[in-house]
């Protein structure tokens, strides 16, 4: 026995080590760690990340120092032209934003009426990407913000372009981000035009796709994909990508899969934002931005069309505006001759009854004005009850007879 062990020492050691790891794999697969505090990360993982992240931080610091010196002091050509271009773009965006602000307010009012809960991003933490997993199989990156910065597991990670992924593990000064193109990732999405919902998953080769979609000829390449908010992780409305191709679903023959091109270049991440807090009402900063934008938009319009929209000096209640309070939204000038299309002329929807206007027309007392004021209907008097009846006839456009 002893001679057997001594003769086969090398393969036996290999066998023991491999078996031990196989057992470890089995334990890990059966008992995955999932917690929200980030403190129950495996110790080995904690040690390795703690060992590697200082070097990665140092490299990042040196690299950014060089690039900032170059960008901020040396490479300043075309800055003035770029600044003017950006200013023009900013003015255009303000005009667009002010025109959309009223729609947004109406949308919020309707959502409140319908009981929808919308989450707005109220707090984010910016982080630099300092490392990767080093293998294509695990599409995770590490950022230089961790538990101490308020990062927690499952917080969404975005860039201004769109969704990056979510926090998967948290360490004191570092956090691991699972990208949306990892095969274990999944997020609820909706197609903006067709409003089809699905789950976006990563593939083994690093692409993103939505599977189990019924064939629909309305889906076209180029359609935008945004988060639906149904996964309770990502706020709704964040850009995810665009439909790149529509291919048959490899698992369901009757379905199709949509290959999605991510809005973010996931292989070239530098800075990301971790959404640490959301709220159901519009954040005050966003409200202030919208008001400022509307005010600036009015200025821009006034420059282009002098006298078209005078800057508001009094509020809707007639009181002069406080300099510190946000200015009211820009309203169109009052009409010279109000009609039923004038804002405020229509009674609230709660007071309206179906068919009331029609009945009013039918059973209104006959008068010469009433009889002549309805070009689309023929009025006649009923001899039986003495009440006039109006028989609406379809409006037909009289074509001139040549």
């Amino acid at each position, binding site marked *: 026995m002893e001679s057997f062990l001594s003769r086969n*020492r*090398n*393969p036996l*050691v*290999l066998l023991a*080590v*491999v078996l031990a*790891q*196989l057992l*470890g*794999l*089995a334990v*890990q*697969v059966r008992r995955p760690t999932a917690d929200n505090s980030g403190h129950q990360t*495996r110790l*080995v*993982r904690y*040690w*390795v*990340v703690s*060992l*590697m992240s200082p*070097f*990665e931080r140092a*490299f990042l610091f040196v*690299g950014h120092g060089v690039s900032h010196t170059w960008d901020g002091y040396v490479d300043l050509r075309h800055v003035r032209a770029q600044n003017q271009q950006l200013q023009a773009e900013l003015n255009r965006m303000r005009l667009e934003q002010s025109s959309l602000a009223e729609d947004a307010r109406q949308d919020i009012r309707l959502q409140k009426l319908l009981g929808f809960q919308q989450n707005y991003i109220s707090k984010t933490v910016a982080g630099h*990407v*300092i*490392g*990767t*997993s*080093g*293998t*294509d*199989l*695990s599409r*995770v*990156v*590490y950022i230089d913000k961790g538990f101490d910065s308020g990062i927690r597991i499952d917080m969404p990670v975005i860039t201004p372009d769109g969704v990056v992924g979510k926090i*998967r*593990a948290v360490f004191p000064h570092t956090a*691991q981000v*699972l990208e949306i193109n*990892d*095969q*274990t990732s999944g997020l609820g999405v909706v197609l903006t035009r067709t409003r089809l919902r699905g789950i976006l998953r990563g*593939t*083994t*080769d690093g692409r993103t796709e939505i599977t189990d979609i019924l064939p629909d000829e309305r889906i076209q390449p180029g359609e935008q994909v945004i988060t639906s908010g149904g996964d309770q992780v990502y706020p709704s409305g964040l850009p995810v990508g665009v439909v790149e191709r529509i291919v048959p679903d490899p698992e369901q023959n009757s379905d199709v899969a949509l290959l999605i091109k991510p809005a973010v270049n996931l*292989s*070239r*991440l530098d800075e990301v934002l971790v959404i640490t807090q959301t709220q159901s009402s519009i954040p005050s900063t966003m409200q202030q931005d919208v008001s400022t934008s509307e005010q600036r938009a009015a200025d821009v319009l006034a420059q282009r069309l002098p006298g078209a929209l005078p800057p508001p000096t009094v509020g809707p209640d007639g009181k002069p505006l406080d300099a510190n309070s946000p200015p009211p939204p820009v309203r169109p000038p009052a009409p010279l001759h109000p009609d039923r299309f004038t804002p405020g002329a229509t009674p609230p929807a709660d007071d309206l009854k179906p068919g009331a206007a029609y009945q009013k027309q039918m059973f209104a007392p006959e008068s010469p004005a009433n009889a002549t004021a309805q070009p689309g209907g023929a009025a006649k008097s009923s001899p039986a009850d003495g009440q006039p009846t109006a028989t609406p006839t379809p409006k037909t456009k009289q074509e001139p007879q040549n």
Partner: protein
Amino acid sequence: MSLLHPSSRREMEEHRFHPLVLILVPLLAIFFQAYLPLRFPSVGFLNVPVLIVIYFAVSRRSPIGGTLLGLIIGIIQDALTHLPLGINGIIDCILGYLAASIGLRIDVDNPGTRLIMNFTFILLASILHVLILRRLLGIHEQWYGLHEVARAVVNGLIGVVLFALLDRLRQRQ
């Protein structure tokens, strides 16, 4: 058959390295493997930690040493991912053991031998990777044969250059 001279002294020589080299070089390899893809995404094509395991295993010519070195490097690689610990650990263990066993039998200082050896081991690592994921973890990992062969060729060539550089860190007896 000039490659097969297990009894010659030079080939049976067990190369020695400074302990710091044995610690720092694998860590540096893992660090660059994790950091460089941020700046150069195509670097992810390389598998430098496995090349390091192969190099030290064939140089030390100790199957147990190769196995343990593969275990450590593989576990560190696994710790940087979000996957269970042990996937790369098992692969690197087996590669370390095989490389050390081969190092006892053939002349691994020859660049041609190194190219073939690296190519074979990287390809074997890819096969083991897919097998572990599919059979043990139930992850349906696609196998792109041509891609893996190309990856093995590139890593083999890089390995020849890397091994030549690492040869300079040997301690001459």
